């Protein structure tokens, strides 16, 4: 029984209630005769501003309602092709970011040892001067290449302009080597083009959606979720390969609870079924592919029975699901996934997905992979800087990861630690919390120790901000106008991010910060704008887009062009050396890699340990949103999922047995301990792995809401298996054991 509210009690005993009751009950409506009125809110704005979202990187169009200068609510923009008027919870929760009481409010300069998170507020002028001086000093001592930019998010374009002009090629986003990189390489090798974002997949029209390495539904990229629901409505079926009974698995016709790390074996076995039973698209294979015979020979012995000992999936289930996938071709979509940095064989794994898709002939077909185009919008014109980098990017050593298609953020971090191929002395970090984004924070800290300058530009005081020398508070996406968004999409469009309310506190938009720094670094010419609106207007004018309409609607749609053969797209061409779909890759063979995907067997978890898997929740985008009070109300901490049978047998939990909600700590193979995290004892996961949602367990002092809630998986990722093809960091190679959370004494 709860205690009495003391204040209430005092109020009552003071005797005031009688009078209050009379006043309210008697005067207002003694007999209750007036008609009852329900509760009516008033949250519609006086002013509704269209822009697009930045809570994740999908960039849905939103309408922000503004009333008395305050954003009251955010709803979907019905005109925007990505949101179609609907939003995921994060989109609605944008106000939680804007009005987060923990936001960075003033420029800060570090006053004690790095990482101690002690800062003093300074003026913008002082902070910018300090950054510019630091950058100049490093440039003079080590060359401009000794400065690296890490960025994530749409506002990063201004700083890329700054670094390019400054003469540093070391510009990297963790979204490549820590996320989508392997997928891009796998598809580039096979089709001559990557997947990109938003993924050009026609989920809406597919008959069979195969998710292997994707938990769409928990990973709420708005349009994809909308399309999946529409596909289900139209009777499409799902095949879901996941060690965990994900939301999508719950809707699937076939759920294959695969042993983690053995996807390639399964994909090869599917190919075996499809080829040996002649269920492939013979026409597409004959016309557009090379190396089919080699592939046929390669998978001839890779039967479902062969795959069973490797994957733990019963042969009959592999065979049946494989037949089903083939039966729905070409409207049978094997989803490429998004994050694909798991076991170090990830580019090959993505290649297997690409090859399977080719066998299904779903490339360029309705219900399969589309070939969209974007609107013709020229880039912003600005004078090229005279400073050119003299050295190549530092993210990889010669001969390593030859197929990497973009800078490796982890590689830049390695180079900073080892000073090879050359020392890196300064980091600018824009909108990415490297402590959680890069594997093994100990390694990142070691790199930071080598730096002369670390500048963090961010909205919230994430962990990386605590390590910075200078902190520049950026305005949130609702307080700034950014560059135009011109994606390739089946419905080409241009979208505008525009300022909804003026920046709060002393925060400034990224374009302003970059320009200020540019001017201080003698790069004023490259920042030939007064405000970002100049850039946007210039580009719109060059593309002959009505800016007024763009500002009014937030989006301008282009002419819809066919994106698949069913709509009249001519036969596709492929930008590979053979100009065909390379089932067998000469390119790989020449580089000394397997020309066709080979199964790799992952290391077994040591006795008493579990493989650590991570994923996403619909209400959060990594650690970026976990301090958002609104989203935190939906999910304030992560849980570690443990199979029920495995939990019952956990050593150390004999009596009482582990129950859902008990706090545990995870200890990895290198003895790293997590913060306490609640257990979820569940049937929904295999017994050889545990799962948690990424992005929790913050330790930064300034994140007053998120701090200490749940556990941080990145801390436990002290080992990675690097993809030899492209340098992606496979992170699902860590093992943890479950220990009791210590009772505080």
């Amino acid at each position, binding site marked *: 029984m709860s205690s009495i509210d003391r204040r209430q009690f005092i109020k009552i005993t003071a005797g005031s209630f009688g009078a209050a009751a009379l006043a309210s009950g008697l005067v207002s409506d003694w007999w209750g005769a007036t008609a009852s009125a329900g509760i009516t809110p008033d949250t519609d704005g006086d002013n509704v501003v269209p822009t697009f979202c930045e809570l994740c990187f999908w960039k849905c169009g939103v309408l922000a309602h503004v009333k008395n200068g305050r954003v009251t609510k955010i709803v979907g923009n019905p005109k925007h092709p990505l949101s179609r008027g609907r939003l995921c919870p994060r989109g609605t929760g944008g106000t939680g970011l804007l009005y987060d009481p923990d936001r960075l409010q003033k420029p800060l300069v570090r006053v004690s040892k790095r990482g101690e998170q002690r800062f003093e507020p300074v003026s913008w002028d002082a902070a910018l001067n300090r950054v510019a001086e630091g950058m100049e000093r490093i440039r003079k001592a080590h060359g401009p290449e000794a400065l690296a930019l890490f960025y994530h998010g749409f506002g990063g374009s201004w700083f890329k302009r700054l670094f390019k002009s400054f003469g540093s090629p070391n510009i990297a986003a963790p979204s490549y080597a820590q996320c989508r990189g392997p997928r891009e390489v796998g598809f580039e090798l096979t089709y001559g083009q990557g997947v990109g974002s938003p993924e050009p997949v026609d989920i809406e029209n597919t008959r069979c959606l195969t998710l292997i390495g994707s938990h769409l539904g928990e990973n709420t990229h708005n349009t994809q979720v909308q399309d999946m629901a529409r596909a289900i409505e139209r009777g499409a079926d799902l095949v879901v390969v996941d060690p965990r009974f994900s939301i999508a698995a719950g809707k699937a016709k076939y759920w294959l609870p695969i042993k983690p790390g053995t996807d390639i074996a399964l994909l090869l076995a599917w190919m075996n079924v499809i080829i040996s039973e002649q269920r492939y698209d013979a026409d597409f294979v004959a016309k557009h592919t090379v190396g089919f015979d080699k592939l046929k020979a390669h998978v001839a012995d890779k039967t479902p029975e062969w795959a069973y000992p490797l994957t733990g999936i019963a042969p009959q289930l592999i065979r049946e699901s494989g037949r089903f996938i083939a039966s729905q071709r070409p409207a049978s979509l094997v989803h490429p996934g998004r994050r694909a940095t798991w076991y170090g064989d990830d580019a090959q794994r993505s290649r297997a997905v690409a090859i399977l898709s080719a066998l299904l002939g779903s490339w360029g077909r309705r219900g399969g992979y589309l070939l969209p185009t974007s609107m013709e919008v020229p880039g912003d014109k600005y004078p090229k800087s005279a400073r050119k980098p003299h050295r190549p990017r530092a993210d990889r050593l010669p001969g390593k990861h030859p197929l990497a298609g973009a800078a490796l953020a982890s590689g830049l971090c390695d180079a900073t630690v080892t000073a090879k191929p050359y020392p890196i002395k300064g980091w600018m970090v824009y909108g990415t919390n490297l402590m959680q984004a890069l594997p093994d924070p100990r390694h990142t800290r070691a790199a930071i120790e080598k730096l002369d300058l670390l500048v963090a530009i961010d909205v919230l005081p994430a962990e990386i901000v605590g390590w910075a020398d200078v902190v520049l508070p950026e305005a949130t996406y609702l307080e700034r106008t950014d560059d135009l968004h011109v994606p390739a999409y089946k419905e080409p469009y241009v979208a505008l991010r525009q300022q909804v309310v003026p920046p709060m506190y002393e925060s400034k938009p990224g374009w302003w910060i970059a320009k200020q720094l540019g001017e201080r670094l003698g790069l004023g010419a490259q920042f030939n704008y007064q405000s970002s609106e100049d850039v946007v207007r210039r580009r719109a004018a060059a593309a002959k887009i009505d800016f007024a309409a763009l500002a009014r609607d937030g989006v301008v749609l282009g002419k819809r062009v066919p994106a698949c053969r069913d709509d009249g797209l001519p036969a596709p061409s492929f930008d590979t050396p053979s100009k065909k779909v390379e089932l067998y890759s000469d390119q790989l063979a020449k580089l000394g890699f397997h020309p066709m995907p080979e199964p790799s067997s992952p290391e077994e978890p040591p006795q008493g340990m579990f493989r650590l898997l991570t994923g996403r929740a619909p209400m959060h985008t990594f650690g970026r949103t976990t301090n958002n009070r609104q989203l935190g109300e939906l999910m304030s901490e992560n849980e570690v999922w443990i199979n029920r049978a495995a939990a019952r047998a956990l050593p150390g939990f004999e009596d*009482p047995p582990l129950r859902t909600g008990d706090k545990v700590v995870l200890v990895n193979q290198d003895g790293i301990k997590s913060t306490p995290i609640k257990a979820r004892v569940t049937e929904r996961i295999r017994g050889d792995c545990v799962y948690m949602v990424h992005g929790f367990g913050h330790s930064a002092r300034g994140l007053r809401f998120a701090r200490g809630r749940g556990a941080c998986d990145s801390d436990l990722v002290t080992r990675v298996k690097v993809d030899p093809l492209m340098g992606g960091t496979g992170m699902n190679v860590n093992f943890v054991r479950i220990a009791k959370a210590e*009772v*505080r*004494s």
Partner: protein
Amino acid sequence: MPEQAETTARAERFWNPYVAGVALGLVLLASLLVAAHGLGASGAANRVGVTALSALAPAHVASNPHMATLSAGGHHPLDNWLVFEVLGVLLGALVAAYSAGRLKKKIVRGPNISVPWRLAAALGGGIVMGIAARLARGCTSGQALSGGAMLSAGSWVFMLAVFAGGYAMAYFVRRQWR
């Protein structure tokens, strides 16, 4: 009044100690066999104390390792075998006393001690026993009787020590009783 005297005499009539002892032994045996639990008393008092304290200062109780163990397993400190057992003791003794005509308000004391002193001694002795019972993990019921029957070495040490303590102290408090 003769009637009064008769009532008093009847009220003084207790069971033969050996009969009572065997009956007690059978209850204890039943407890050991049926519930796999010895009979106790001081553990319940401890739990009552901790519960009262945690109502006043919950944080303080949670921070004391000795007290925090009492709510292990997610149960309220009073949601415990011993507490229910002692509740039964209370009721059983009540019925026994009432049916024997011994249920009345009284202060049992020797002829040479005043009421306040007797009560102070009762309280003080209780405090000493409270501490002692915690130290020894049980009292005459839990340790000496139940542990003794299971032939636990510690229990026999404890039992001998109880008699030693009693006899050693008896001389100093003789005025209370004689």
